[in-house]
């Protein structure tokens, strides 16, 4: 690597730019432009129902930050993130380890574990609503047959958010398992065998060989998992519409409600921008932490 940096470096830099261009141009048109257009909107009083708009400065930001519902949605998002974000990473890793064995029927298990990921939230929500129907769903039917107290599930503020978070772990875990699995399979067998010969047990091998080797992927996956939970929307939209009593109103749901149901484009844009800032701060912190952690990155 070092030697190449000196020779041919200008040609390489040129090709480097060429290779980035398809992505960069497309991204600039389809993401950056809309982003700045959103940023601009957040300083206006734009409303889908009116054809004119004017500049209002930071008025939207002040009103959003004073908005009780915005604070509630922040809190809900954070609770959801804790359960879902942590859940998928931990269980995803465990699942990947289970699947990284040469056993009979492995392909069957892999496919099965991935099914919840493949199926769209719309459908998953239909299924869950169907099963967890508070009075006559199959879940409560079994509870009744067993003589246990029936549960209100998604219709009580005490359970709704936690149930959706658990459902999200259930649905998302296969996705992260696949990422972890791909990384696990790239850990050289020889290293593990050597460690095994030295008398290391499977737990030891995992922590001292596999995990450090997988670190770039782990950092990536944790980031994706957290961003994924922060951006979660469909489940809240279809299963509870943010209720009952606002217990499942997360930031993304609130954004949708403001921008699309209430058609307050400018306030919606403001929430989106604030959300982006929050996530950026969050990922920034996480990056700092992981940079400290991954002194191991240079293992190759």
């Amino acid at each position, binding site marked *: 690597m070092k030697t190449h940096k000196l020779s041919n470096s200008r040609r390489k830099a040129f090709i480097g730019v060429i290779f980035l261009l398809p992505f960069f141009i497309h991204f600039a048109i389809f993401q950056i432009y809309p982003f700045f257009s959103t940023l601009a909107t957040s300083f206006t009083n734009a409303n*889908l*129902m*009116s*054809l004119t708009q004017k500049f209002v400065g930071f008025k939207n930001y002040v*009103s959003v930050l004073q908005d009780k519902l915005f604070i509630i949605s922040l809190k809900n998002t954070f609770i959801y993130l804790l359960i879902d974000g942590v859940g998928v990473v931990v269980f995803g890793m465990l699942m990947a380890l289970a699947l990284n064995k040469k056993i009979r029927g492995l392909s069957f298990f892999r496919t099965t574990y991935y099914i919840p990921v493949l199926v769209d939230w719309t459908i998953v929500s239909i299924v869950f*609503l*169907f099963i967890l*129907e*508070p*009075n*006559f769903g199959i879940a409560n039917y079994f509870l*009744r047959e067993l*003589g246990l107290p*029936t549960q*209100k599930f998604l*219709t*009580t*503020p005490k359970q709704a958010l936690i149930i959706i978070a658990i459902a999200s772990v259930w649905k998302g875990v296969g996705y992260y398992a696949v990422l972890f699995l791909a990384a696990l399979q790239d850990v050289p067998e020889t290293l593990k065998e050597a460690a095994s010969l030295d008398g290391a047990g499977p737990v030891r091998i995992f922590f001292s060989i596999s995990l450090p080797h997988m670190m770039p992927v782990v950092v990536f996956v944790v980031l994706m998992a957290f961003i994924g939970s922060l951006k979660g929307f469909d489940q809240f939209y279809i*299963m*509870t*519409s943010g*209720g*009952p*009593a*606002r217990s499942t109103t997360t930031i993304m749901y609130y954004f949708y*409600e403001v921008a*699309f*149901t*209430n*058609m307050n484009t400018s306030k919606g844009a403001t929430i989106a921008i604030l959300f982006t800032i929050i996530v950026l701060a969050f990922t920034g912190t996480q990056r700092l932490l992981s940079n400290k952690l991954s002194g191991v990155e240079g293992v190759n």
Partner: protein
Amino acid sequence: MKKSWLGYFVTASFVLGSCVPAFAADGAALEYWIAGDPRRTPAYVESCERFTEKTGINVNVVEEAGDNTQIQQKLLTMIASGSAPNVIQVDTMYVADMAKAGIITPLDDLPGFEEAKSGLIEAEVLPSVVDGKTYGFPIRGNSIQLIYNKQMFRDAGLDPEAPPKTLDELADTAVKLTKRDDDGNVDVFGFEIGMSTDAHWTLHAFSPIFWGYGGEYQLEDGSSGFGTDAGVQALSYWNKLVNELEVSPSERVQDGFVSGRIAMMLDGEWNFRTWREEYPELDYGVTTIPMPSEEVVPQIPLGGRVCVIPTMAEDKENGFELIKHVTSYDEQMAYTKDEVGLGVRSDMLDDSWFSENENYRIVLDDMKYSKAKAATEIMQMDTIVYDAIQQVINNGADPAEALAEADVQYNDLLASY
């Protein structure tokens, strides 16, 4: 490997591309957006074919998929970017806001307006009237009724031909119809108040009771009217049914009525066809929603679709011709008979079809009680009040306090408007 995939997709793109039939050949065709579901579309398409036969004007019917919010969003996005169909069916509740925003055009000056309007039930047109101008004609209307299972009435020793007329009677009847197992779990709910995860539907079910107690969304000075006695009484009534008497679920049960888990509910004519086809033995009755006392004249929230013409649309005259066609007697009767939505003409009641279809007759007759769900920023108002209702029903809050909070929020919103 990669190359063969690429080849495959390029070929597929040509094949698929060539399968897309061209838009109606001449550019003169009207574009007519209908709020679709696959069951209703054929009836509307046939109706437009009759229009083309009559006038020689082609109509390109576009069935919109998606929920109310999504359709509205799409429409407004199109308008914001400078294009619009000639005629659109929109939900009744959006018309006033769209009119105020100048997105849709008043119909008053278009040829034949008065005559066309006179045939329609007045209460159904009213929500489309803003500052004395009419911005749309209803194409289908609905009102909600109390729908009850006659067999369950008989089983409980009640007279199926004498459904409850007041809210007290409704509560008593609901108690009698509710069945519990040995552990106290409910097997059959006597009544379903109609609360669901959909804020707008919940308000739809809440409004007749609220209005019945004398409430109004906005007081005379324009401020929020939910924290009034009427609001507290109505919400306390709901709370009593769900949490005290435990005769109603706090959320609508999917197919609860047809499967015999709900004895009475508030619902509309859109179910009748499916019930006849799928549950021919279901013996149900339809009656006007009970009010606090028999003296109170019922006010029922009006629902349905309205045909409007966007300000930006070209060829407004022909667009209006289409609106006149779809609201004409023959077409309205055709929709009614196809059961794709009840017509909204006052002269339809005399049609012999209604004497054979008693339930539809009751619904059509009830339309005289129709009251528009009209208020400033109605969509957000719905959400605000819905939050208060949920706080009470699901979270044990006090009705008066929750509604007072709703007042504060709605007044804030009104102030910023």
